[in-house]
Every structure is written in structure tokens, then in C-alpha cells.
């Protein structure tokens, strides 16, 4: 039977590796190529690379050359997100050695993009990332542009739409949890993963092995992603690229 996946998320700010807290406060972590190399040696399940520096207002091109260098170090599945606005960008990313692209802001700004991407590259290579925050009434609002812009779209209506379009995978992040080490938003992840037929990746808040264990045990999620937990020793401590060891993997996967 298929294993649940545990996925480090690396945030790029140009050619630097950074880590945010609540989508803000970019802290410098180190050299991305070095980090990717270590994650490769640690035989991680998969890697997600997000460029959070790309400004959606200004027409910036993606740093393909740098991404190519990153991809050549990876012998595991690799996803890229950040600034992909059209088929041409997507095709270039795939050619560099990424098998999945992650889209967020651009699909809300261009209604046809998701459909076009799926038609061209197949469902399995299109990952849709959705960032949310709870409002006063305890409902979830969708945010785009790195959490800066709130949308007036109901999360679950939107989910139904992307399910019908045939998106391959979803990454769900609660912005209020990101970088906090306080655990995933289990209720959110449970309510999304139980109503979707495609794999759902939980993101935001992971601070311990227990958090991963909990989300795997209590929800139908297919994968757990984490940033801070895999790039720092502990909360408030220095950089240490790390991953679960064999023993810990067995524990969280209930093997």
C-alpha cells in the first residue's frame, strides 16, 4: 500500500534560502543548492521549492538557470511554485527536471489557467496551493499574493470547482500557523481531505514528529509538508537541515 509522504518545503528569495513566519519576517537560512544536496542524501520523499520573492505586480521572469542547478541535484520528486503564469513557464520548469508545478495566485487571476495547464500537462503534474486564514465568524478565507490579498470566494465552493477541473494535488496552508511550530490546523486539513478525491498535502505549523503523527492518524491527508521543522534544529535555534530518521519514519507511518 502507498505510504504517506513527508515533504520539506524550501522557500527561495531569489537565490537565497529563507524561512518566513506567518508569511512575513524572512529569515536567511543559507544556500539552497547545499540544502537540496543534503535533502537528497537524506532520501526525503519529495521536495517542494517555492520562490516567494516573485512580485506579482511586476513582470519578472523566473530564474530558470538557478532552478536547473537545483533540479540536477535531486533524485526525488520535485515541485516548483512561484510566479508561474502560463503554459510556457510551466513547460520550461518541467524541462529542467521538476515533475510538478505549484500554482496559486495566477489561477485566481486567470480563470482559464488551471484548465489549460491540466489539459497540456495532465492532472498529475499540477498542484494547486491554497492559503487560508480564519475570519471572525470562524470561516476560512482564501488569500493570494503571499497572504496579502483576501478573496471573496468560499473555500469549499472553490474546492469543488478545482475538483471538477481535475487538479492533481492540493497543498493547504493555514497562514496563521505557518512558521509557528504549533502543529497543523487539523480541523481544516480533515475537512478538506475528506471531501476531495485527489491527494491533499497539509502545510503550516509542523513543529514535531507528534504533529505529523497526529495529522496522519486523524485525517485523510496524503502528505505532510514542513518548512521550519526541516531547516532548523529547534524553535528559535540555528539552521540544521534535517529529516526523519528510519526509526522516526516507521513511527509516524505506523509501519
Amino acid at each position, binding site marked *: *500500500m*502507498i*505510504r*504517506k*509522504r513527508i515533504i520539506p518545503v524550501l522557500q527561495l528569495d531569489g537565490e537565497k534560502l529563507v524561512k518566513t513566519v506567518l508569511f512575513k519576517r524572512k529569515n536567511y537560512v543559507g544556500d539552497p543548492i547545499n540544502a537540496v544536496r543534503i535533502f*537528497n542524501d537524506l*532520501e526525503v*520523499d*519529495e521536495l517542494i521549492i517555492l520562490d516567494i520573492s516573485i512580485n506579482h505586480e511586476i513582470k519578472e521572469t523566473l530564474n530558470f538557470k538557478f532552478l*536547473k542547478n537545483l*533540479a*540536477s541535484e*535531486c*533524485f*526525488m*520528486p*520535485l515541485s516548483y511554485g512561484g510566479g508561474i503564469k502560463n503554459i510556457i513557464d510551466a*513547460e520550461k520548469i*518541467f*524541462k*529542467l*527536471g*521538476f*515533475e510538478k508545478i505549484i500554482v496559486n495566485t495566477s489561477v485566481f487571476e486567470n480563470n482559464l489557467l488551471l484548465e489549460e495547464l491540466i489539459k*497540456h*500537462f*495532465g*492532472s*498529475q*503534474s499540477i498542484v494547486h496551493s491554497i492559503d487560508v486564514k480564519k475570519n471572525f465568524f470562524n470561516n476560512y478565507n482564501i488569500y493570494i499574493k503571499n497572504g496579502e490579498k483576501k478573496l471573496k470566494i468560499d473555500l469549499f465552493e472553490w474546492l469543488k470547482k478545482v475538483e471538477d477541473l481535475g487538479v*492533481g*494535488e492540493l497543498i493547504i496552508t493555514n497562514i496563521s500557523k505557518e512558521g509557528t511550530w504549533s502543529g497543523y490546523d487539523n480541523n481544516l486539513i480533515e475537512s478538506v481531505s475528506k471531501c476531495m*478525491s*485527489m*491527494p491533499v498535502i497539509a502545510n503550516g505549523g509542523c513543529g514535531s514528529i507528534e504533529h505529523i503523527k497526529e495529522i496522519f492518524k486523524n485525517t485523510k491527508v*496524503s*502528505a505532510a509538508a514542513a518548512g521550519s521543522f526541516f531547516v532548523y534544529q529547534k524553535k528559535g535555534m540555528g539552521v540544521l537541515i534535517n529529516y526523519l530518521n528510519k526509526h522516526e519514519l516507521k513511527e509516524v507511518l505506523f509501519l
Partner: protein
Amino acid sequence: MIIIIDLNLGNVGSIFNMFEKIGVSSKISNRENDILKATKLILPGVGAFDSGIEKIKKNNLINSIENKVLDKSTPILGICLGMQMMLESSEEGKKKGLGWIKGKVTKFTDHNLKIPHMGWNQVRKTKNNKLTNNLLSDSRFYFVHSYFANLKDKKNQILQTEYGENFTSAFNLKNIYGVQFHPEKSHKFGMKLLENFSKI
């Protein structure tokens, strides 16, 4: 030289990278000349069945590939969609497959399963084969697919994987090999398999 056939169907760079890592020379190409001179071929691919078949026919590569595979017995390894295209047809599309292997590509039927089958899964040897020689005991491979190769003749199956049901995750018929998973994305486990293929 191993030629990785470039059909513009997703990620071919990582196959090249992995061969480079194990010191095997390969080249990504869609030129007839390269294909005709190849010692071995890789037919990669991700995406929809019909668009794959369309691309292999549009680029007019089909004649040179079939000349190599069917007349000259050049070993070929199909990966993911590349493997599926080697069969006669697919539930995913309307176009005819290459038909080198008898069988149809069919969809997973268990509705309780997440589709696509995406992630790391194990394989079980159903037969000894050069491609799967000395695979590491805890081998796991990375899969991303919604359809699988339903072979007419199960004796060509060499690896089997379970996802709701048992399905063929690798096959071999003469010089034709196919794997449903992505060896190029499966760490040292995939590296071993590609190394085996390079030595066939």
C-alpha cells in the same frame, strides 16, 4: 549511447541527470539520426495517453523507433506514460497504442482510493529479470498515475504493486521493458534499476 527520446512530454532532464550520476552516457534527442544510432532507448512520458501517441506520431519518430525496437531488437525502457503507450489501447483515450505488448491501459476501479496513485510504493518481484536484478531489499519507487498497464499475458509481468488491487508495475517482453514508476525520481532504488538497464 543511450538515447532518451524527447517527446516534449514532461520531465526528461532527470533521467539524463541520473545516468550522469552513475557514469552512463546518454543524450536527450528527438532526431531520427540519433535514434537510429542508439544502443538503447528510453521512452519517457507523463501526461495524457492520446497526446503522447499524437506526439510520437507527429514527430515522425515512430518509424525509426519501430525499426530499432521491432527489427533490430534494441533494448527500450518505457517509463510511466512511455510504458503505457507500448500497449494496444487505453481507457484514457481514443487513439491506438503502439501495440508492442498485448493489453489495455485501464483505470483504478476502487473509488475509495485517492486518484492519482501518487507517492512511494513497494514492488514485488513476480519473476526474475535482468532489469530487477539485485534491487535493494527495502526498495520503494515513486509513482504518479491514474491508469495502469493491464497485460493480456501476465507472464510478461516482472514487478507487481498493490494499490487497492495488484497491478503490473514492470514488464518485459524480449527487448521491450516498461516500468510504471519513475526510477529517475526514486533515489538509489531507481538508480540501481537504471544501472541494470544500462547493462542489458
